[in-house]
Every structure is written in C-alpha cells, then in structure tokens.
C-alpha cells in the first residue's frame, strides 16, 4: 500500500505546527512564571471564582443533561410520536448553531422582559444575568453529546434480557434499573463527560446570558479574554494553562471510559 510516509508525514507536520507546538508554547510560557507566580495568579479570589463557575456550572449542566438526555434518547429509540423525526434532526442544533447566536437567542428568551423570563420574573425566578443562566447555556450546548452517545447503545440493547427479566417476575422499574441502566452506563458516562468538557470551555453562548459580574457570573474563558485585553499575558496564560491541564485530565478519563466500553462490548 503506497502513501504511508507521505500521509503520515503530512499529518504529523500539520498536527504539530497547528496544534501541538502552539499548545506546548502556552504551557512553556506559564512554566516561565514559576510555581509561585503560577499560584499567585490562580489563588486570586476572582480567578478562583471564575474557575469554580466554569467547572461547577459545567458539572451541573452535565447532570441535567444526564437526566433529560437519557429521557430524550429513550423516547427516541423506544416510542413513536408525532414530530419525532423533526426533533431527532433538531437535537444536533447546538452543534450547528453558532454559539454567539445561541447566546443572544437564550438571552432574549430568559431576560426579565423575554418570552420565558417575564413569567419567571413574576415568580421571583431569575435565570439571565445570574449563574443559573450560565448553567442554562451550558445545558443547551451539551445536550447533543448525551443523546447522540446513548441512542446507538439503546438501539443495540438486547431486548431478550428485558423479556427474560419480565418473565422471571421483575417489575418494569427493576428491569430498567438493574438491566438497562448498567448496560448503558458506560455510554451515559462518556456522553456526560463530553458534555462536561464542552461546557467547561464554552464561551460564546455563555457570555451574553451570564451578565459577567466578577466573582459571581464570570466564567474562566472570559477572564482569560479580559486579562488579554489588559495586556496581562502572564495572567491569561496561567488561567489558560490551569484549564488546559484539567481538560487534558478529563480527556484522559474519557479515553479510559471508552476503552472500558470497548472491553464491555457496548
């Protein structure tokens, strides 16, 4: 088979020049700060609050998606209902819709004078310009990951096992929690981890609805942006490196999860 050195050489060069060397450059820059300099930047209350919001918000959004994403995937695979094909096609909207568009659309809906924001405000619930808005935007952006990872696994799930459980007298609830849930768990965790990873780094859809109040509703990527605009390269680099290191750890976890899935054959 021809072309090995050509294609591999090109791939490695392109990957190195555009991704690996720039990322290594970032880590190198922050290494230049030294451990104390690095810690000095990260331990500032505003930085800690931003990191906590990005990771905490993404975790909350991933948890919401775990519940509703499973429910949606289940309805798609097991039931027929009018409008299903439209909704199935629309699930990928958060992938296809530019994040800035999603951001201003969500803000228009949930702002205190918006379609849903106004009735919610009457009930005393504020979502926009509040940390809850951050979670809302991250939920939007992460939704397809859980649904798309679960759908094929649910489709392939062996119904005979469910039938056997039912024949042996298990209630439907018991079958769902003891047979189906364990079978789809690795896929569910993978989908949730992917949604979480996406939420952590998310910028465009969040900044419009968040209100961006320092220490309250300011996400870490926005703080990097602000530091850059202040020409505080060291600050921007340190926050970015911290995010990068945590994200790579996550990526490793996702890969291990997928290896686990392959071993279990789901």
């Amino acid at each position: 088979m021809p072309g090995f050195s050509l294609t591999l050489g090109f791939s490695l060069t392109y990957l190195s020049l555009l991704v690996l060397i720039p990322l290594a450059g970032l880590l190198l820059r922050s290494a230049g700060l030294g451990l104390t300099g690095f810690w000095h930047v990260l331990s500032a209350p505003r930085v800690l609050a931003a990191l906590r919001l990005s990771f905490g918000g993404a975790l909350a959004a991933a948890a919401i998606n775990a519940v509703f994403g499973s429910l949606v995937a289940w309805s798609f695979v097991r039931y027929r209902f009018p409008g299903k094909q439209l909704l199935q096609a629309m699930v990928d909207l958060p992938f296809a819709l530019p994040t800035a568009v999603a951001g201003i659309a969500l803000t228009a809906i949930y702002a205190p004078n918006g379609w849903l924001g106004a009735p919610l405000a009457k009930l005393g619930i504020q979502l926009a310009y509040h940390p809850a808005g951050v979670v809302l935007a991250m939920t939007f952006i992460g939704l397809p990951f859980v649904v798309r990872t679960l759908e094929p696994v649910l489709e392939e799930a062996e119904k005979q096992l469910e039938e056997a459980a039912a024949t042996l007298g298990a209630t439907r609830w018991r079958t769902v929690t003891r047979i189906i849930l364990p079978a789809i768990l690795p896929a569910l965790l993978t989908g949730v981890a992917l949604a979480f990873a996406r939420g952590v780094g998310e910028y465009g859809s969040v900044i419009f609805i968040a209100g961006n109040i320092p220490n309250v509703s300011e996400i870490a990527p926005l703080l990097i942006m602000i530091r850059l605009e202040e020409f505080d390269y060291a600050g921007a680099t340190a926050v970015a490196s911290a995010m990068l290191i945590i994200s790579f750890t996550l990526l490793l976890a996702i890969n291990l999860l997928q290896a686990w899935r392959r071993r279990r054959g789901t």
Partner: protein
Amino acid sequence: MDEPADMQTPFVPLVQTNAAIGEPRAVRLLLIGTTVLFLGVFLLLPLAAVFAQALSGGVRAYFAALADPDAWSSIKLTLLTAAMAVPLNTAFGVAAAWAIAKFRFRGKELLITLIDLPFSVSPVIAGLVYILIFGARGWLGPWASAHGLRIIFAAPGIVLATVFVTFPFVARQLIPLMQAQGTDEEYAALTLGARGWSTFWHVTLPNIRWGLLYGVLLCNARAMGEFGAVSVVSGHIRGQTNTMPLQVEILYNDYQFVAAFAVASLLALLAFVTLGLKSLLEWRHGNELAAVRGH
C-alpha cells in the same frame, strides 16, 4: 425534514409491541411529553426567538440591516475564512485517515487522541495560543512585523484560529469509516496495476465520499460560526476583521438588536441547512455512514 411518522428511516427500530417490556401508557405519555417539552423549550424556542427578534422591526428594517456595508464585509470574511480552513482540514483529515486506517504503526492510538485534542480545548485558549506566537510580544511577532506580515488582528490569524477549532471534524468522521472498510479493495486495484493516486481517486474516494461530505459539512458549520477563538485574534476592527458571529456581538452590544438578530438569522439559516443536509445524508446513505455513528 418533517416526514410523516410512518416513514421509517434505517435507524428507527420497529415499533415496540411486546407488552412485557413496555411501559404503562401513562408513563409513556409522561416521558414523551417531557421529551417534547424539553426539546421544544431548549431547541425550537431559541431558533424561533432569533427570527422573531430579527423581524420585530418589520421586513424593511431586516433587509436594511443586512444591506449594511459592515454586515457585508463580515459575510465576506466569514466565507473567506471557511474557504481557507475547510479545505486545509479536509486535506489533513483524508491524509490522517489514510495513514491510520491503511497502515499499522506504533503510537496510532496516541495520534488519534491528539487529533481529538482541539475539541477539549476552550475556543478562547485556541485563540490565545496564536497570540502568544504571533502577537506583538509573541515569539514570532517581531519577526512577522519586520517582514510586513499581519497575522494577529488580521485575516490570517482568524483562519489559524478557525483551523484549530475545526481541526478534528473531517478526520474523526473518516478514521472509523476507513478502518471499517479495510484495505482489500485498494490491494485489488494495486494488484491490477493501478498507481497509488488513481487507487485513491477511483477506489477509496467513492467509498468514503458520503462520510467525507458529512465531515466537511460539520467542519464548515463550525468554521463559519466560530466565535470565541476568532474573537481573541480578530481585534474587532469594524468592516475589516469582523466575521459574522463577531458582527452579531458588536451590534448586540451596541443595542442594535434588530440588526444583530438579522445577521444571526443568516447564521441560523446556515445551521438549518446543515442539519437538513445532515439528516438527508443519514437517511439516504445511513449504511455507508454506519461506521461513523456512535463515535
């Protein structure tokens, strides 16, 4: 896209008829109701909001907003960026998939992981890394400005940042597809005397064309819609370095809501077309894409 419910796509399983493993009617209705409500609020409502806001000042205001010269220059820059970034990443995706799927070598799994890396990097960081290299205080910044090259706060930086965030799209669609297809057909062609390139054009490419198109489609949607990474390197010079998503942000922050949503509505249409074509590909060529699903 909205076909009658009785039209079965290859992915929709047969109707559940077995009462023993079904749920009671009330539970079923509750689950379906929650699904429709959740997706309606989370997906359909934002889309409806974009068009409602864009047209809230009337059709005339909508088209006036789109005819604005700054809006036009942002459309041109977005098209130019996608026209550079998508072919580059497509060439990379095909080359990487060829090397990974057709050959055995050490470190293959690591290479696949590294290709996926940009997906787990925040877009803002994707922009930042190029500032650190080509910015005024970057490693190559002084060299670039000495040679009259403008990279940051100019179109090349925007293309670089876009390439970074859309890097894995084509490769990750093609790698599992080409791995599943194996090397038999290529070997047959080579045995019959075909050269490497003609084997690729006449044997491999027809086999992967739908997967390739699928990857290009997603890559293009992201390239045209990227916001965070581009925002870092663009410098926001009106009429010069604003892509469509950046134009949306600027108009929105200027309280020109009708204009912001008008430009946004074009991007929403792009998303709509992307989803439509994607569904069409899955429906018509689902079997050929089968290896891709689940990844």
